[in-house]
């Protein structure tokens, strides 16, 4: 199966800073998603982004499917952005519709 690698594993920022989180896939994926896990454990959908660029407020994401990576940009970070960010994708071969998750990036935003 595919491998999903996220970097960095941990990130500490001061409020107001910008950051970029990266997700690499070992093989082609479909239906790439980014999630934010809040302190209570719920996974919140950020982006469904198989390819291209999307923006939602201070967050944006870019997926370059041909090069098997995706980036999540957080601008003007706030303490409420803290938590773990996951990317996940579905294997393009086989049509299994199962998501494979990375290990996550733990973001801490200090006031």
């Amino acid at each position, binding site marked *: 199966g595919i491998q999903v690698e996220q970097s960095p594993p941990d990130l500490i920022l001061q409020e107001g800073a910008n950051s970029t989180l990266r997700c690499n896939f070992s093989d082609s994926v*479909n*239906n790439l*998603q980014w*999630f934010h896990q809040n302190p*209570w*454990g*719920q*996974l919140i*959908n950020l982006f*469904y982004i198989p390819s291209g660029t999307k923006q939602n407020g201070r967050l944006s994401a870019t997926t370059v499917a041909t090069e098997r990576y995706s980036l999540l940009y957080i601008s003007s970070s706030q303490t409420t952005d803290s938590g773990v960010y*996951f990317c*996940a994708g*579905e294997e393009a071969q086989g*049509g299994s*519709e*199962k*998501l494979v*998750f*990375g*290990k*996550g990036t733990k973001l801490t935003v200090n006031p």
Partner: protein
Amino acid sequence: DVKVTQSSRYLVKRTGEKVFLECVQDMDHENMFWYRQDPGLGLRLIYFSYDVKMKEKGDIPEGYSVSREKKERFSLILESASTNQTSMYLCASSPRPSSYNEQFFGPGTRLTVL
């Protein structure tokens, strides 16, 4: 808005008990999934279902079973709970078309087995 609900946020059970975790979605999604999340291991797929009464094993099905009698409800069953099943359990659902099957998650159930 898609809504996925889980029957309990926190659950404490004893070793050997039979445990039922319930998940309900209100968006008429065909696919439903059960994951567990453990520190250092990430999210791992236990079982999934793409239709009523259909089920497929995920990566770690041992010790679990599932039931899907109605489209909106997917139950995870621990036949005889053990301490190594203490974990965070997350349910998800997605529509069926392969061109768009964004998964949506419930709030999770933190299960402790004593």
